């Protein structure tokens, strides 16, 4: 059977950041069994139900190749809770040898001791939300950590034997090109093997969007975003990290996030936790968002699914093109529908697709093309 991945969503944060539209809650005491303290037990109950549901549908997984604790802020939970969930998961489906087990972390939600406990408990990789090294930018993003703490945390993680990735956000209102350079250089100075950098997206239902509407913040400019992206890419490349997905860079192929690659390559994964999405062979399902409702459904022995869709064959093709084109391995040109294939040469001539790769039968974005990935995708899907 196919390899399985598991995503475990921890919907708690100490502070909600102004740009964040994720499913997360800052109040640890939620009613109906949805509190932070009861979370691990709830998640484990959901794992049991998920396994039973898969078996009933005829899906049996031999092993789990990647696990990812995301949030929210997973490290807001005691390290023991994360380890307990991981242990329960592997008791249901064994972890593959060398499995990648990542947790997201905020610089101020981990300590030397907690990182060491996580490593001992089977976590192999930590993805740290650094976002920026510039205090004014961090303040606009509502991030509370001291930028000086990041190198320290990276050092502790490395000492504990963890692989480390740093997350950056560029394009925050008020951020200059020089600020981006400062942040990227600070991240690279930590000698990490993996870097993610996202342009700030201001979603409509966030505090930052309201500030934008009131004119308190300046709207992001796409050309400025493009300049910043290119700067990140240049600096990462100079430090020996090359892109392997539009927003991700790694020192070697072994340092790429295998969990995320599973998403992009159409793998199956469990989605555990409030609001989490799962995928099984074209079936996409997502959980109810509120932790209390989530807990109440689990208490009655019901899978806490809000809704699901069986992705039609043509849409699966759309998803495949949309996801595989974003990664450095690119997309086999055979996947592109015949009536769309003439667009490949057009995008090559416009400088969006790598000519050599195309000759070899793969559509691989150039750097210019990465910045216009959605436009290229729209031209290639049926």
């Amino acid at each position, binding site marked *: 059977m196919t390899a399985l991945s598991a995503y475990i969503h921890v919907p708690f944060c100490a502070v909600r950041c102004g740009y964040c539209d994720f499913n997360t809650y800052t109040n640890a005491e939620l009613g109906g069994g949805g509190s932070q303290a009861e979370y691990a037990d709830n998640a484990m109950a959901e794992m049991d139900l998920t396994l039973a549901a898969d078996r009933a549908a005829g899906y049996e997984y031999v092993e789990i190749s990647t696990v990812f604790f995301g949030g929210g802020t997973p490290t807001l939970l005691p390290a023991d809770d994360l380890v307990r969930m991981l242990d329960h998961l592997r008791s249901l489906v064994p972890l593959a040898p060398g499995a990648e087990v990542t947790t997201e972390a905020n610089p101020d939600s981990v300590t030397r001791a907690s990182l060491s406990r996580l490593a001992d408990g089977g976590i192999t990789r930590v993805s740290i939300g650094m976002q920026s090294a510039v205090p004014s930018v961090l303040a606009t993003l509502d991030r509370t950590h001291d930028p000086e703490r990041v190198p320290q945390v990276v050092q502790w993680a490395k000492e504990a034997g963890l692989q480390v990735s740093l997350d950056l956000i560029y394009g925050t209102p008020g951020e200059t090109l020089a600020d981006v350079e400062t942040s990227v250089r600070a991240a690279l100075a930590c000698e990490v093997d993996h870097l993610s950098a996202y*342009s700030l997206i201001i979603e409509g239902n966030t505090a930052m969007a309201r500030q934008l509407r009131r004119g308190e913040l300046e709207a992001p400019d*796409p050309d400025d975003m493009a300049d910043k992206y290119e700067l990140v890419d240049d600096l990462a490349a100079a430090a020996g990290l090359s892109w392997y997905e539009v927003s991700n860079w790694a020192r070697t192929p072994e340092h790429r996030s295998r969990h995320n690659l599973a998403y*992009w390559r159409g793998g199956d994964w469990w*989605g555990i936790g409030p609001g989490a999405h799962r995928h099984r062979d074209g079936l996409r399902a*997502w959980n109810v968002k509120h932790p209390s409702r989530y807990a109440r459904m689990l208490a009655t022995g019901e899978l806490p699914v809000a809704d699901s869709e069986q992705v039609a064959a043509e849409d699966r093709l759309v998803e495949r093109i*949309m996801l595989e084109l974003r990664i450095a391995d690119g997309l086999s040109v055979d996947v592109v529908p015949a009536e769309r294939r003439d667009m490949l040469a057009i995008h090559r001539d416009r400088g969006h697709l790598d000519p050599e790769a195309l000759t070899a039968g793969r559509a691989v974005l150039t750097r210019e093309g990465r*910045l216009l990935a959605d*436009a290229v995708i*729209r031209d290639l899907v049926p």
Partner: protein
Amino acid sequence: MPVTPRIAADEALDIQPASTPQERLRNFCIIAHIDHGKSTLADRMLQITGIVEERAMRAQYLDRMDIERERGITVKSQAVRMPWQVDGVDYALNMIDTPGHVDFTYEVSRSLAACEGAILLVDAAQGIEAQTLANLYLAMEHDLTIIPVLNKIDLPGAEPEKYAAEIGQLVGVDPEEVLRVSGKTGVGVPELLDHVVRTLPAPEGQVEAPCRAMIFDSVYDTYRGVVTYVRVVDGFLRSRDRIDMMSTGAHHELLEIGVSSPEPHPTQGIGPGEVGYLITGVKDVRQSKVGDTITTSVRGAEEPLAGYADPKPMVYSGLFPIDGSDYPILRDALDKLKLNDAALVYEPETSTALGFGFRVGFLGLLHLEIVRERLEREFDLDLISTAPSVVYDVVMEDGTEVEVLNPSDFPEGKVHSIAEPVARATILVPSEFIGAVMELCQSKRGNLGGMDYLSEDRVELRYTLPLAEIVFDFFDQLKSKTRGYASLDYDVSGSQTADLVKVDILLQGEPVDAFSAIVHRDKAYSYGVDMSGKLKNLIPRQQFEVPIQAAIGSRIIARENIRAMRKDVLSKCYGGDISRKRKLLEKQKEGKKRMKNIGSVEVPQEAFIAALSSDAAEPSKDEKKKK
């Protein structure tokens, strides 16, 4: 003001239709500017003569169409027969309502031709306006007896002395002879009706001659077909007659003949000097044309009355449905409007930018506005219209002549000369704005024909201007340069050759037909710069750089660049984002389908619409009302 009618309509047995002697008839119209109170005065007359009871009075009874009512414009004239007694003698008065706008000059002239006299109605607070002046001159050319009247004398801002002097001078009477009324309260209206009887000549048709009746209006009615309004000049029309249209020789049965007072009253016939309506069962006003002469099929007249002319469209514009699937609805709607509008002409037009639509010819800008508004309102259509254009006569080097109704049909090849229509314009302004108006007219290639002071501080300026300059944005500019005080009238008269060129707007080398324009060579550059600048701001960035050029033939005269889009990517796409992102992609693709492709450039239709509608060529409705 309650006034007892001097005779009840049903008691006036000696002035029945078809048996009223001509000396007991008076036919008149009212010449007035849009908001000077013509309809209110007419309503008051209906009430005072007793043909409409007070409680049945609908404000502005005679203006039937909604648009007219809202804009205060009378588009379609009708005739009302009213009884009135002076010195114990009964008279039948026919009030013929005239269209008030410049675009309908021909219809106005036919209404005037149906009358012996005209009431010149002027707002006592505003004085005479250019269009009223133009219609007054027209009435004088028809040898009509003019009764000058100041209206709204009850208004606080009224200056009756000042304006009585002004119109007294125009009409050639002493200021004391200018009557003063209030259509609103009724003050002075009975005296005005007395004056109509005493001063207007009675009709002098030949009673025994073969019948000749002039059509001065023709209206399509859903239930009855075309209702034709006529003035009988000679002889009689009787309900049993078969009639002929003299311009075409077509025969029609008379299904009904009668008079309006103001509701239709069928009669046995109408006699010399009388005004009435007739119904023949035809379904299209083109079969019953304004200005045509009607005679009886048996013992008919040999010679038609003078003055017949076919309406000629002066301004053309492309009308396109914003939703392409509305095209059949637009076609049906135009077919319906045509039944009631003999001046409306159209043929299908296909535009790369705007899709399928029609090239429509209009009498003028107001006609365009009215038609467009009726299409939108009565047929629930959303439309975009291209910049109005006039008719050019292009002579090629090889001697072939081409009539160009649409700039995108401008012929290729060497042009010998281009002739454009010119208009005689009359502009009335307070004297402080003379300089501003002259400057404007100069910049619009105008030639000053003359200038007269109507009063100490009001001036009449007469210009010859290219019609194309007037239909472009002249009126808006005139209003803004005179703080809204100027009034304008124009009348197309002849043509002139001019140094005109066709300017194309190119997107990445491909012409965008909807933006081609024929302009004077001196204006070509500024048109090109304006239009390319406008499109630069409206067209979204593409994956590649897009040049926007303005060109005369192959010569580029202006250029803008839309820089290539650099970023179009969602930076995060993880497990939970996939469904949402796929749906977003599908939505974007749907949006892409609605784009128009000019070469490889994708342009949302909204961009074309915005570029056309932000055009200064369309005066806003508020401004038009003030006119």
